[in-house]
Each structure stands twice: as C-alpha cells, then as structure tokens.
C-alpha cells in the first residue's frame, strides 16, 4: 500500500487495513459474493450479494478505524449485526451446524488476504505480516460477532418455542354447556400458571362458561406458590362472573397441604373431576339420575 498517502508512514496496521478495505471495497465484495455464505443467502441477484458484502466491508473498515479490531462489541459492527443474524439463520435453516457456518465465515479471509498481498508487493515483509495479522484478527472478530448474534437468535427461538409449548400443554375441554375444564399436567411454575390462568379465563368468555374446573390430578406437588396461583385464578374467574372449582386433589397432596398449613381460602375443591362436574351440573340445575331403579340415585 505504498505510493498513496505520503504522510501515512506512521499509520498503525489497523489504519492501513482500514485504508485497504476502503480502497478494495468493490473487489472484496465481488469475491465474497461468490463464497457460499453470500451466494446461498442472497439468491435474488448477484448484486444483492455484492451489496451485502460491501456492508460488511464498510463495518470492518469502521471497526479498524476505531482501532477496535479485537473488540466484538465495537460500535462499528452494529450496522451489520442484523444482516449477520439473517445470514446465520438462513444457513441454519439450510441444515448447517453452527460450526459449519463458522467455517463459512472463516472462508471470507483468504480472498481478502490475497488482495492484500497482491497490492502490497512493495511493502516490507514485516509490514505485510503486521497488516495481514490485523486483517485476520479483524475477520476473526467478525466471526465472533456473527456467532454471538446466532446464539442470541437461538435463545429467542427457544423462548418462543417454550411459550408455544406452554400454550399447547394447556388444553381446554368443554364438558357441558356452560362448563369447561382445564386439566393440568406437570409442574406449575410462574410462567406456566400465567398461561393457565389466561387460557382458562379466555375459555370462560369464549364458551360462556359459568363454571370452570381446574383439574390438578397431574400436578405432582402443591406448594405455597402453586396454592397461590390456584387462588388467583379462582379469584379472577369470580370477578368475571364464573365459578372455578379445583379438582383432583389426591390424598397425598391433601395431606401435604394440611401439613404445610396451606389454606386455599374460599376456593371450592373436589376430590375428582367427576365430583367437580357433578357439583357444577347441580348448580346449573341439571341433575344426573341413574337409570337403574336401584341405583345410587341423585347426587
């Protein structure tokens, strides 16, 4: 990078790399556009891939300008974070592992390196080594940034799926006209009980249900937190004009609850879902009578 900038002899390797990136912006982007990472993500046109490549070159130049070649948090990267996330996501969708994406990112270095070497034939070997090292550190940092972004994307994907799972795991069953039931299976943490509460209350509105049964047969333990959630759900249903009955309190759970001194307050409880349904039907004025004359008769 010799002849231009006569006074630039004292420039740091980072600034030399910055100047190189700015000078060779077009060529680097052109070569990158042929690399799998860009070629397979930006499929609309080659120009699109070249533009995306230029955006990355610009970001690298900004980071080099700020002397932050080793800093993945450098402000210069912020402009391309979203683009990198999109590229990473597209490659993962195509079935690539994070490691594979990472090596595709690594493949961006040789083309840039070749250009640097080609134009630096008048530089001393020391200078060339310094620039080349800086460039490779800079691209390594870019790889780190891309991986960081990919990981946070993965995290948000997991969060999204977890939420969907919560919703799926909370079915609402219409048992009778005006009676809905929500069977709970598994542990009730705060996030889950929030979803349960909303699901139950929305079902009350949608089904015009005067009664909602929360069946906890499948809940392994009831601690004070779970008891509190149950009471909140019952209270909210009551405010809307529906009665919520908690059913499926197994003997062991009843024992623990008494042992722990847990009080469900005014919450109506029944041992089984059938008992709860019987209670609701009775309140609705619908009585189930056994057909057999010697049956147990009315509840």
């Amino acid at each position, binding site marked *: 990078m010799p002849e231009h900038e006569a006074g630039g002899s004292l420039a740091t390797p980072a600034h030399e790399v910055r100047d190189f990136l700015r000078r060779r912006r077009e060529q680097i982007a052109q070569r990158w556009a042929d690399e799998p990472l860009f070629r397979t993500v930006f499929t609309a046109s080659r120009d699109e891939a070249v533009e995306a490549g230029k955006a990355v070159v610009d970001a690298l130049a900004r980071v080099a300008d700020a002397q932050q070649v080793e800093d993945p948090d450098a402000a210069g990267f912020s402009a391309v974070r979203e683009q990198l996330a999109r590229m990473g996501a597209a490659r993962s969708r195509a079935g690539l592992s994070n490691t594979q994406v990472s090596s595709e990112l690594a493949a961006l270095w040789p083309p840039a390196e070749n250009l640097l070497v080609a134009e630096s034939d008048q530089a001393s070997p020391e200078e060339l080594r310094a620039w080349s090292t800086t460039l490779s550190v800079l691209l390594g940092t870019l790889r780190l940034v891309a991986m960081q972004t990919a990981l946070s994307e993965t995290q948000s994907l997991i969060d999204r799926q977890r939420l969907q799972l919560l919703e799926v795991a909370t079915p609402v069953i219409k048992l009778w006209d005006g009676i809905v039931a929500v069977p709970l299976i598994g542990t009730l943490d705060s996030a889950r009980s929030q979803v349960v*509460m*909303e699901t139950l*209350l*929305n079902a*009350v*509105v949608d089904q*015009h*249900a*005067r009664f909602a049964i929360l069946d906890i047969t499948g809940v392994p333990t009831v601690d004070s937190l779970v008891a509190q959630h149950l009471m*909140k759900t019952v*209270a*909210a*249903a*009551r*405010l*809307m*004009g*529906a009665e919520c009955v908690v059913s499926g309190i197994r003997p062991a759970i009843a024992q623990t609850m008494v042992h722990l001194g847990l009080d469900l307050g*005014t919450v109506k409880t029944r041992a089984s879902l059938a008992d709860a349904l019987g209670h609701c039907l009775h309140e609705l004025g619908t009585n189930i009578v056994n057909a057999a004359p010697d049956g147990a008769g009315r509840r």
Partner: protein
Amino acid sequence: MSEGLSRPAAGHVPVLGLGDVLLVTLQGDLYDSTAHRLQQDLAEAIARSRVTGVVIDISGVEIVDSFLGRVLAEIAAQAELLAARTVVAGMRPAVAVTLVELGLTLPGLRTALTTEAAMELLARPVVPPRSGGGREGGP
C-alpha cells in the same frame, strides 16, 4: 319510570331503567369525576325509583384500577343499603387478572359473565347472603 333517570351530558354515564333493574353501561376510559358522579346519580336513582337491582356492564372497560374498583364496591354497598342488589357484568379476562394481581379481589361484589346473565341472577329468588351485611329480604 325511566324519566329523569338518564341524563346524558358531558361527563355523564347514562342510567337506564329496565323494569326493576337499573342498567349502567361503562365504556372506554372514565374520568375520576365521571365515576364519582355516577356513584351519586345511582344512589339517587335507586332511592327514587325503588328498583331491586343494578347491573353495571363493564365489558367495554379496558382497565379497572383501585379507584374504579373502589367506586364499584361502594356503589354495591350503598345499593345494598337501599335494598337493591348490584351485579357487575362482563369484566374482561385481562382486567380480572390485573385486579387480582393488584390485590383487589372485591369479595363483596356480585359478578356475571354478561348483562343477560346478570339479569337472570337478579331474577332468581334472593339467597341469604353468606357473610353478614346487606338487607336482602324483599319488600
């Protein structure tokens, strides 16, 4: 019997007479002063018309904070003193969740899913209240 009961004016909530019942429909976001005014208007209207029930439809209300919660509780309590039962109808799920989280479960308040359900509830024979207060017993 509805003459003079509804006075729609700025900052006023109309009160509608339907037989033995007064129907109030709250909509949107209320000024505190409007809620206060409604509380007074209702007391007068109940005393004047000798209705036995009040239905407050809040299905169009997006939030109930502790102020509006207190106004509703007070309306119910004062109606009770005037021998009328109050039913709050149509509270939205999000509002109910929020009130409970706020710590306001309004235990003394009668509630119903819809205004129709509230009317039905009022048409049913009076059940003696479980926990003291109120003078339900008919004329």
